[in-house]
């Protein structure tokens, strides 16, 4: 399992380097988005990754804020997953902007009327909280590991940042700090990911996005995808099912409940729009269910990403962690279809009819399919995530259970 993980990781990374070279050398010329469908695969990837990050972080808060012991064994994994996926999200969006070298403008000249500016600032805070939380969680293990000889100890000595205290009292103090940070992190995660939903929802020009349900749907699907991803991660890493069996089963049930709620919200969105029947508001949804990419919705998102996993999680297979893990993998993959179906149909409706016919240009076209470069670069970002996650999992101290025995007041 782990070997397959590494092979996929490095293969994707290699493919991504080709896409990266093309993006850096030739800019956006080989990307297939244009001036009608102006956001494409990279933006979908970005909201997918940031959803994973928010979801994984919120699952970790079950441990560090709400003290749910059942998920203790994946607390560290969840935080590390949140950190890695946050980096992937930021990478995806940086490659999408026209002038990558100007990304700092958002920090230097923010316009706080713009949800996008808010988002970037909140990510910065979130990033700091994640790093601090992870460091305090691992600090004692770093201190202890630093005494070991060899390169492992060397890395740990560097990671202690000079701290030498390995007492239980120090550990308890760390845990209190972690708890404070995690508690700040919960509303923050809700804000920034609800904010991503609001970034889309507040665009009145795009009826497909312009709905009060949207930010809530973003949060729900973030929780679903984050929880599902963690179940998969816990199956593969840190002694896998030998240790995490019960956690995976429990996560499966949490994911099932959230998934059902998510489906309910989606149904509401469709029902209200179609019964209302305003052409502009239905246009995007019609593209979703019967446009050129109907199969993304029906095949990928609905059958593979929703119906099969719900059955696996509800039928007696729910008691077998391998089936649960498979169901969660399908959910995590299926939600990428949902992300694509948010970004692209929202844009692929001509705002004024006949725009595509008015000028002959491949950039002025309501049809969009990602280019080779877009796919390669996205694969590379996934590959980078797998490799960074694998390295971190290998190098960083594992939760060995003793962390959980320190009482938190």
């Amino acid at each position, binding site marked *: 399992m782990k070997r397959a993980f590494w092979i996929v990781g490095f293969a994707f990374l290699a493919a991504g380097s080709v896409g990266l070279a093309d993006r850096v050398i030739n800019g956006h010329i080989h990307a297939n988005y244009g001036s009608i469908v102006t956001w494409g695969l990279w933006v979908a990837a970005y909201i997918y990754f940031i959803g994973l990050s928010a979801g994984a972080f919120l699952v970790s808060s079950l441990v560090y804020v709400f003290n749910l012991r059942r998920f203790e064994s994946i607390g560290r994994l969840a935080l590390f997953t949140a950190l890695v996926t946050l980096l992937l999200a930021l990478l995806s969006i940086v490659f999408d902007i026209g002038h990558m070298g100007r990304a700092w403008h958002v920090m230097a*000249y923010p316009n706080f009327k713009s949800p996008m500016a808010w988002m970037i600032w909140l990510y910065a805070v979130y990033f700091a909280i994640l790093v601090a939380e992870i460091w305090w969680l691992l600090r004692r293990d770093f201190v202890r590991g630093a005494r070991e000889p060899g390169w492992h100890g060397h890395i740990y000595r560097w990671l202690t940042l000079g701290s030498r205290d390995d007492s239980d009292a120090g550990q308890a103090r760390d845990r209190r700090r972690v708890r404070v940070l995690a508690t700040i992190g919960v509303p923050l995660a809700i804000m920034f990911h609800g904010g991503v939903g609001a970034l889309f929802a507040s665009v009145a020009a795009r009826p497909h996005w312009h709905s009060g349900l949207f930010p809530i749907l973003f949060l729900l699907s973030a929780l679903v995808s984050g929880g599902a991803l963690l179940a998969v991660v816990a199956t593969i890493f840190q002694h896998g099912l030998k240790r995490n069996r019960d956690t995976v089963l429990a996560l499966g049930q949490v994911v099932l409940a959230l998934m059902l709620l998510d489906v309910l919200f989606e149904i509401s969105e469709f029902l209200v729009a179609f019964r209302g029947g305003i052409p502009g508001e239905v246009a995007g949804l019609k593209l979703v269910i019967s446009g050129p990419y109907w199969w993304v919705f029906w095949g990928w998102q609905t059958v593979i990403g929703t119906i099969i996993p719900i059955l696996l999680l509800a039928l007696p297979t729910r008691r077998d962690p391998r089936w649960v893990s498979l169901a969660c993998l399908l959910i995590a993959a299926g939600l990428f279809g949902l992300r694509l179906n948010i970004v692209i149909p929202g844009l692929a409706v001509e*705002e004024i009819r006949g725009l595509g016919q008015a000028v002959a240009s491949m950039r002025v076209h309501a049809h969009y399919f990602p280019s080779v470069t877009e796919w390669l670069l996205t694969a590379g970002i996934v590959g980078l995530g797998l490799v960074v996650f694998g390295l971190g999992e290998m190098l960083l101290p594992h939760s060995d259970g003793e962390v959980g025995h320190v009482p938190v007041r």
Partner: protein
Amino acid sequence: MPANTLFEAKRETATVTEAHEGGPSVHEMSRRGLLDHLTKIGAGALAAAMSVGGALPAIARAQAAPASPRPTRRKFRYGMVIDTRRCVGCRACMVACKAENKTPPGVFYTVVFDHVIEPRIDDKPLFLTKPCFHCEHPPCVDVCPVSATYKREQDGIVVVDYDRCIGCRYCMTACPYSARWFDFDENYPAVEQETRYAEVPSPEYNQFRRRESGKSPVGNVRKCHFCMHLQDENGEYDKAAGRWPACAKTCTGKAIHFGDFLDPESEVSRLVRERVAIRLKEELGTEPNVFYLL
């Protein structure tokens, strides 16, 4: 590199007259730098063309007068009234705009639609030319994460600061009228093959940028700015002198009327008063400054 000296010159002036919150604004620019630049690249043809078009006298005047601080109160409300009954769908406006602003393929500051209403119950064709509407409440402006696009206080023209814009394209999603275009670094053959035409800079925002791969406005969002570079130092246009938005100047059927809505006696004010004018997507509350006569 000539383009760089241009930008630096622009920044110097901008720091003196900085009024737009947080940085240099696009319309501030050293005219002396421009002339030097033109001489350097030997764009004699352009200089000649500009003197015919009336841009050169304006530049000369601006050069003589000291740069005045940017006015902060609204002096003009520029807009258009487009008479669809006079539009024959010749698309001369699109061509004139391209010739004036040197926009690359895929970037169209104005577009002529002929399938807006389809199927029609009668057999009358309806053509609709659509520049940026320079809305009173532009949704594109609020979403810009870096305030690179803004509505100018003095005349309501919605502009893009090419040096500030990061190219996130959020404004393009927010514009209900598809008035914004991303510059993908595509070029017409004349530019690609580095003919003399490639040497001619675009007069946009009086910045006279030469097209260079990877340099703004490549990678930026671009839009109609009512040919703002043709304004004189008081921010006024002059139809008789040819300092008039290219599309309106060239319109074969005289369908595109341009002017100041704050002036009750302007042609556009009169047309809106006397005829039945509509604006697109009123329900969004954007209040476009471009009206259509049906």
